[in-house]
């Protein structure tokens, strides 16, 4: 955008437009809500880091808008058996430093994810025992046991390949200048200000990418982020809060993409995390069931999120291939909830301390629940803290209930295993249910979707009865864009895939 007559006399005569780009292709400016962490696909953890990496560090596989896995640097795959995956690579592809993308590079990258100090990918690759080179363009992944979920891990950061040459040269500092295979390459990063990517010539899928440069800018304040979009200083705002969604919809120069995510927000219950002794809320499922019946999920999303998010009592969103639409969404039933409380024989009001992250939306959700459950005899005591403090309390098991979200994984296993499997690091519930563990293991042992869904149905039913996590809603993504941006195909993981995206002529 060219800024017209500046405010001050000093600046009156100055042309303030950015210098015209030398390249023929336009540049794209994208804003997200926070700065990325280290730009290394092995050690990076933040969502925004993955957004910035996605178009410069391709994975073996990726996801399409139906959340189906599709090959990228891989050409095809085949399960030799339930614990052996054979992947064929796309020929004639190079990393952005010229190093060929071959089986040796796959072995190097995957082993780097497994062994690098501070790797955040070790858990994703937990079931992998060996990567074998079959021929220069074929690799075989050997797993500890049957695990079809492993394939989905190769579609996220654990499947990203790094240039072995660049990685060896940079060592621990690879994240300061990452070199991967992708339609864009890393140009520069100024912490808290921008990450700039530049298009590479002759990439195998390069014709599908229509911008010469991509600039990602962290803009923390949502109002300011939107003001930047409205002023034309950015083209895409990747995080429009539900409260501002209407402003984007009403602006003729902007458009809003609202689409399902893959995560959830729920009330996590302490049932013995870190060997703590839970109170009645953690031990008596009737009290949790009464709580569950006392809340109205639809009302929560309507009041707090203007109906943008989706009320949901299950760990996967309605658009996930792992969602079971035949299972009922619970309705608020105060009479039944009161009966359950009476059966549990607890003294009313029954106090439930609830740990809440101190952001306005989380506090509002808790306050709405507070008034709803009061009718049944609960006294919800809100204990608001900053996120890291809630995390610390949850880790120690120093909480009763905690409203928190999970960003989600493409496979249902990723929304359950880390959170509820016995002994998992992020099982903040302290849930120990051998039957649940067995079912979860069964579900990953076959690629047959019908068999898997039958198992997940049992799991969901079990979780609805036991309520270790009282799932509240599935968050949706809100991307605001200038109307000139065309060709964006939303994918539930909330990434910004730029293939096919361009400016209208």
């Amino acid at each position, binding site marked *: 955008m060219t*800024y*017209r*007559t*500046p*405010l*001050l006399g*000093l*600046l009156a005569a*100055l*042309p*303030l437009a950015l210098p015209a780009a030398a390249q023929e292709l336009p540049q794209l400016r994208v804003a997200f809500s*926070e*700065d*990325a*962490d*280290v*730009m*290394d696909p092995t*050690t990076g*953890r*933040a969502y925004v880091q993955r957004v910035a990496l996605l178009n410069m560090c391709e994975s073996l596989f990726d996801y399409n808008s139906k959340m189906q896995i599709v090959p990228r640097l891989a050409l095809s795959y085949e399960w030799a058996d339930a614990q052996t995956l054979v992947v064929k690579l796309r020929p004639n592809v190079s990393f952005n430093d010229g190093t060929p993308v071959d089986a040796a590079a796959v072995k190097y990258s995957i082993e780097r994810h497994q062994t690098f*100090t*501070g*790797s*955040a990918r*070790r*858990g*994703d690759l937990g079931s992998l025992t060996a990567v074998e080179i079959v021929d220069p363009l074929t690799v075989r992944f050997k797993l500890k046991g049957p695990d079809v979920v492993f394939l989905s891990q190769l579609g996220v950061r654990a499947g990203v390949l790094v240039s072995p040459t660049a990685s060896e040269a940079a060592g*621990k*500092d690879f*994240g*300061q200048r990452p070199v991967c295979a992708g339609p864009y390459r890393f140009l520069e990063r*100024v*912490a*808290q*200000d921008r990450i700039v990517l530049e298009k590479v010539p002759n990439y195998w899928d390069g014709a599908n990418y229509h911008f010469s440069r991509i600039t990602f*800018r*962290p*803009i*923390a*304040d949502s*109002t*300011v982020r939107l*003001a*930047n979009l409205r*002023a034309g*200083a950015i083209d895409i705002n990747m995080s429009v809060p539900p409260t501002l969604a209407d402003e984007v919809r009403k602006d003729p120069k902007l458009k809003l993409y609202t689409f399902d995510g893959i995560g959830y927000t729920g009330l996590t219950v302490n049932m013995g995390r870190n060997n703590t002794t839970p109170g009645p809320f953690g031990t008596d499922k009737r009290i949790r069931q009464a709580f569950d019946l006392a809340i109205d999920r639809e009302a929560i999303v309507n009041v707090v999120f203007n109906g943008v998010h989706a009320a949901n009592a299950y760990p996967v969103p309605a658009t996930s291939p792992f969602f079971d639409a035949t299972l009922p969404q619970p309705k608020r039933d105060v009479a039944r909830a009161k009966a359950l409380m009476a059966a549990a024989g607890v003294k009313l009001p029954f106090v439930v301390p609830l740990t809440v992250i101190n952001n306005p939306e989380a506090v509002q959700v808790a306050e709405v629940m507070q008034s709803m459950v009061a009718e049944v005899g609960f006294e919800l005591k809100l204990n608001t*803290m*900053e*996120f*890291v*403090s809630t*995390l*610390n309390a949850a*880790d120690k098991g120093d909480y009763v209930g905690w409203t928190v979200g*999970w*960003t989600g994984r493409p496979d249902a296993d990723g929304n359950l295993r*880390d959170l509820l499997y016995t002994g998992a*690091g*992020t099982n903040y519930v302290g849930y120990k249910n051998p039957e649940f563990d067995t079912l979860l293991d069964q579900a990953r042992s076959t690629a047959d979707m019908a068999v898997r869904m039958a198992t997940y149905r049992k799991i969901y039913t079990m979780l609805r009865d036991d309520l270790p996590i009282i799932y509240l809603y599935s968050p949706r993504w809100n991307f605001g864009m200038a109307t000139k941006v065309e060709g964006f195909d939303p994918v539930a993981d909330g990434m910004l895939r730029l293939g096919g995206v361009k400016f209208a002529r």
Partner: protein
Amino acid sequence: MRGHLGVRFAQVIPTLLLVSIMVFCLQQLMPGDPALVLAGEERDPEVLEQIRRELKLDQPLVFQYFYWIGNVLQGDLGFSWRIRQPVTELVATKLPVTLQLASMAFIIAVFIGVPMGVLSAVKKNTFWDYLANGIGLAGLSTPNFWLGIMLILLVSVHLGWLPPSGYVPLTEDWRQSLATTIMPAFVLGNAISAVLMRHTRSAMLTALQQDYVRTARAKGLSEHLVVIKHALRNALVPVVTLGALELGTLLSGAVLTEQVFSIPGFGKMIVDAVFNRDYPVVQGVVLVTATVYVMLNLVADVLYVMINPRLRGA
């Protein structure tokens, strides 16, 4: 004077040492294990242990402090745990940004605050006095955050005159740099100008009643000369001290303004670092800010002596 300055300079070292101990200890009081934050969502216990070992979080606090301060004395402020960049490098990138913003804000504050203070004192109890006081009061009571957002909406979104956020270094394109920093500088300078205006007014009122001003007038000097050369020069002594302190405050107080305008300076860096428990960045930034603050006070002392000749013999 040399002795006085020597003593002030010698006080700098223990002050900074105390600051380093305080920032290190206060930070430990913050709830939340940095390893939990750094590990992201998948907090594998083995990874957590590895992180704690690598960052020496498993060592006693005294060891951690001496390890850090030992490196600081060798010019190494450590590296950011979150983005894995040397803190020295981050400080070197951010300090000029904040200094530019603070200097511009200070200049704006001086150019608005001091003349308004003088006008208000000279035209005491007139319309101009009330107007200046009104503007000063409004400046003091308007929150930076609100003013920033309002300016963005008005100047950038509706009028399209200036970019709403971002930063371009002076060395890269000075015009674009001014365009990106003039609004945040005005927001920052606005509140300071009100403080300066109030102090200048009060100092001028005192100065205008002094004998030397009456003498100057009796000598037949023009009112302009009396006000500017005799009254203002003397009134400026406390104003300069205040100005130096306010400039220091600007360096550390630009947090909200930098957040609103997405200026990648110290303020934005420290906010991100605190929320992410990026201790080396917090420690580094606080230490550098404290050093600059202490140095500014030293400069104020020198200026004080230069403006007030009576102190030269002290």
